[in-house]
Every structure is written in C-alpha cells, then in structure tokens.
C-alpha cells in the first residue's frame, strides 16, 4: 500500500486492474485505492508477472502492507499458490494511541515513596516533610490523607494565606508565620512590609509608601514625620531587646600597630577614593570571625537559635537628624577588603540620603557599631533582635603597652561583644573575640587578593 500523502496512514483497495498471470510494466496503473481524501491510482514501480493479489477489493490496510506479489518476467505462473494465510486485515482505523499509563507507582526500596504533585503541594502548604510520611496508597504511595494525618490534622480549616511571593520568601527568612501577619495589600494580602513590621526586630520598618488616596504631602513635613516615626521604632526595639535578651558582655583590647602601619602603607599611593579606613578592616575581621565561630551569626526564633549561612553584616549608622539605623551588607563574606570599603561607603551614603535598597534594609545576621569617632573608648552595645550578638569598636588611641617586657606606646582599640546568653556562652563569645583580635594582628590575611 503506497503512501500517497503526508498524513495518509491506510487505504482501501477499490479496484484491481490486473489479475494473477498478467505481465506488468514499470509505471503501469495496477489498482485504485481510496484514501480519506480521494480515490488514487496505484502504479507498479517494478515489472514482473502478478502471482497473487494479497488484499481483496474492499479491504483496508495500513500504508506499507503488501497488496500483491510479482514474479520476475517470464516466470511460469501456475495456479495461484496454496492458500497463503491471508494477511490478517488490519483494523480499519489505527487503534487510538493508548494513553500513556499512569507512571507506575513503583516503590523502589529505600527511595521515598512516590507522591503525586498535588500531594507534594499539600505537604508543602502544611509544612510536612514527605520523607517522614508513611504512605498507605498502592505500593506505599503517599496519599493526601496521609499528609493531612502527618500534619496532626492541624490543616483542617486553616485558610490559605494570600501573600506576595516576596512576602512568603521574607517570612521564611525571618521565621515569621504568615498567618500571624495582618496584610495591608489588596483584599488583605500580606506584603513584605507587613512581614517585616511583624518580625520582632526589623531595624527600620521601611518608610510606608503614602496611601495613594492621601492628598499630596509637602516633602519636608513628610521627612520630619518619617524621622520621628523611625526614632520611635528604634526606641521600642531597644526596650524590647533589653527586656527579652539576657545580654552578657566581653571586651578585649587589641594592639593595632601592625595593622595601622600596613593600612597606611597600602593607602600611600592611592587616591582618596580608593583608600581603606580602619573601619573596613574591623568589618572584615568580624565577618571572618563570625563565619568561623558559629552561634553568633544567626537569629533567635521561636525559642531556638537559627544559624544563617552567609554573614549579613549590620552596620550601625547615625543619621544627620541624630536617629540611628543598622542596615546590612548582604553576604559580606564574599567581599574582599576594597569591596567591603565600597559596600560600607555605599551603605552610609544611602542611609543618610534615605535611599537604602531593599537588600540593605533586609535583616542582618550580626551587627557592628563603631563609635570610636566620637572619642568613646568602650561601647556596651544593645543587640538588635532577633540577632544574637553585636560587636562594638571604641576609639583607636595611643596607650601604654607592654612589649617584650618593655613599656611602649601603641595604637590600641577596645572591642566589646554583647551576646545573647540563650544562644551562646562565654566560651564561644571569647573564641569569637580572639578570632577578631587575631585577624587584626595579621591584616594581610584580611586582604588575600592584593599583595601587601
């Protein structure tokens, strides 16, 4: 059966124009076949003598099926050969392609039971870990009921919380339960600002965007209002911090002679814009130490310490209007010394011009305050919840210092650490301070890329 068109799959023999024993030449029309489109003549592409007509008139066969057989020209053709087992007539229409079977729910040993996407989504909604759920379905497949049971039946009746994707992501990061947050979005949808306001210690709730319906506001009064609101928020935060967090304090004085000389030498032939301040060196030291010593870089959430991978370094910045903010440098561990200096510069300039980016306002994992500029020797900082530690740097000043038993004058800084006793203890806090001090003693280590 020839294919007589791209979408032709079978044909019905309407007429035979030859019979066994007839000689056939190339190109001769030997039969007429009906396709869905029309009756079409079938030509022979070979010459020979017809031995038998396999497919009778009226039968439908698939493209490619044998219609008739030819013997080479001149061959004697006796009576039609013994009844060949007639070719089983193909079913009229090709069978509907069988629907691909449901993926077999084979439960290979060891691998977690297979579960359908719907079940996986349900588990995600109810914060249920599928690995821990016994499946009661065929071959141990996990069913919806199994998930609901595993969630302690809590799920029943708990409505899905409408929220923006960013709000959900921030809630996960801040450990805030969405359904504990009142949404200010359309139809009560929770937005990221709502999550941050609800989180106990967002350092600075972002200036709420004016209500679109509110009449136009004079820019200056808007700014004054914003400052007042910000100071109130920080005040309330500090009060709660002192109330809830059992602070304990450690201090250490560090000789910066080596670091100062190294930094002075590094800055010598650089234009001011590329010079690095000691503050950047301090931030690098804290970042490296925080990454090294766990239990100080993370958040205290719902009665448990949640470590955070990556050091999101908060920096306390005083604004011109006197108020204080502590925006963060995200993933500070990725920055070398020059990049840390640039990040610090960008953070301070943006904070003071009120154009902090969303990322800078997102929540740090540990914060540093550097009041040395104001001539204060030691600082006893207040931790920003939910962080569990805060480092303070005092003034760098020449002090008497014992060197190899001799009295010398050295530039010394006193570093203080406030820590949350629920999350860490004196031993870990001391190891952290030593790590910071050790880094400041060999500054080149804090600046791997550029040669000293």
């Amino acid at each position, binding site marked *: 059966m020839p294919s007589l068109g791209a979408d032709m799959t079978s044909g019905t023999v309407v007429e035979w124009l030859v019979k066994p024993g007839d000689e056939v030449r190339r190109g001769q029309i030997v039969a007429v076949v009906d396709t869905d489109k029309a009756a079409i003549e079938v030509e022979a592409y070979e010459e020979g003598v017809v031995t038998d007509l396999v497919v009778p008139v009226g039968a439908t066969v698939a493209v490619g099926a044998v219609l008739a057989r030819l013997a080479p020209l001149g061959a004697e053709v006796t009576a039609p050969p013994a009844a060949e087992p007639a070719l089983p007539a193909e079913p009229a229409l090709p069978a509907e392609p069988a629907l691909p079977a449901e993926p077999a729910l084979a439960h290979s040993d060891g691998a977690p039971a297979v579960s359908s996407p719907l079940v996986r989504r349900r588990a995600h909604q109810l914060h249920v870990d599928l690995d821990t759920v016994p499946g009661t379905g065929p071959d141990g497949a996990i069913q919806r009921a199994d998930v609901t049971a595993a969630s302690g039946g809590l799920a029943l009746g708990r409505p899905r919380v409408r929220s923006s994707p960013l709000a959900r992501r921030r809630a996960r990061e801040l450990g805030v339960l969405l359904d504990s947050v009142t949404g200010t979005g359309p139809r009560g949808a929770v937005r990221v600002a709502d999550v941050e306001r609800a989180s106990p210690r967002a350092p600075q709730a972002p200036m709420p965007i004016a209500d679109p319906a509110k009449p136009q506001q004079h820019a200056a009064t808007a700014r004054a209002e914003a400052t007042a609101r910000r100071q109130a928020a920080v005040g309330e935060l500090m009060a709660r911090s002192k109330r809830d967090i059992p602070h304990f304090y450690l201090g250490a004085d560090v000789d910066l002679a080596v670091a100062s000389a190294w930094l*002075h030498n590094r800055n010598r032939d650089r*234009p001011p814009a590329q010079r690095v301040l000691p503050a950047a060196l301090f931030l690098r030291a804290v970042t490296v130490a925080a990454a090294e010593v766990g239990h100080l870089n993370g958040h205290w959430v719902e009665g448990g310490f949640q470590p955070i991978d990556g050091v999101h370094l908060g920096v306390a910045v005083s604004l011109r209007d006197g108020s204080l903010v502590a925006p963060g440098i995200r993933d500070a561990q990725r920055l070398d010394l020059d990049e840390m200096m640039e990040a610090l*510069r960008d953070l301070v300039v943006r904070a003071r011009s009120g154009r902090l980016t969303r990322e800078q306002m997102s929540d740090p994992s540990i914060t540093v305050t550097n009041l040395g500029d104001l001539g204060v020797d030691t600082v006893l900082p207040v931790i920003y919840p939910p962080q569990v530690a805060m480092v303070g740097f005092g003034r760098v000043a020449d002090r008497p210092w014992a060197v190899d038993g001799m009295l010398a004058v050295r530039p010394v800084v006193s570093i203080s650490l406030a820590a949350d006793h629920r999350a860490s203890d004196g031993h870990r806090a001391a190891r952290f301070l030593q790590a910071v001090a050790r880094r400041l003693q060999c500054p080149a280590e804090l600046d791997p890329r550029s040669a000293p």
Partner: protein
Amino acid sequence: MTATMSDTEARAIVAGILADIAPEVDLDEIDPAGELQPQLDIDSLDFLRFVEGITKHTGLPVPEEDYRRVASLDGAVAYVSGHR
C-alpha cells in the same frame, strides 16, 4: 591655576565640599582653628569624603600624613590655597 589661589577662592572650595557632607552646618559659626570632625559631627568616613573632595577640586593627592593639616577649617583653606 596660575598664581597661588586667593584665600576667598580656597574657602569657597572647602565650603562647597563640606556642604555635601554636613549640609545643615553654618561654617561661620564654628571655630575655624578647631577640629572639624567634632564640630560638624562627622565620622571618619565623612572626613575621607572631605579629603576626596579636595583632591577632586584641586588635584592635590592629600596623603594621610597631611590629614592633620586639613583637620581644621583654617588648615584646610591654607592647604588648598598654599599649595596651588
């Protein structure tokens, strides 16, 4: 710049730079010989931006050794005009 810049010109440059950093401070009310940092309530980062401003406007490299000489208003003006 040809001859040494006049003091008034140098003062204008220094004032312009400080205006960006501490906009709300009136330079006439501060002690010109006293240290700028405490009087203007600016930290070491602001001071570095002040030094940067001097370099940008005058081309002077202002190495760290010279920070002391530009720590006060008079010092800065002298530094800017004297060196021209």
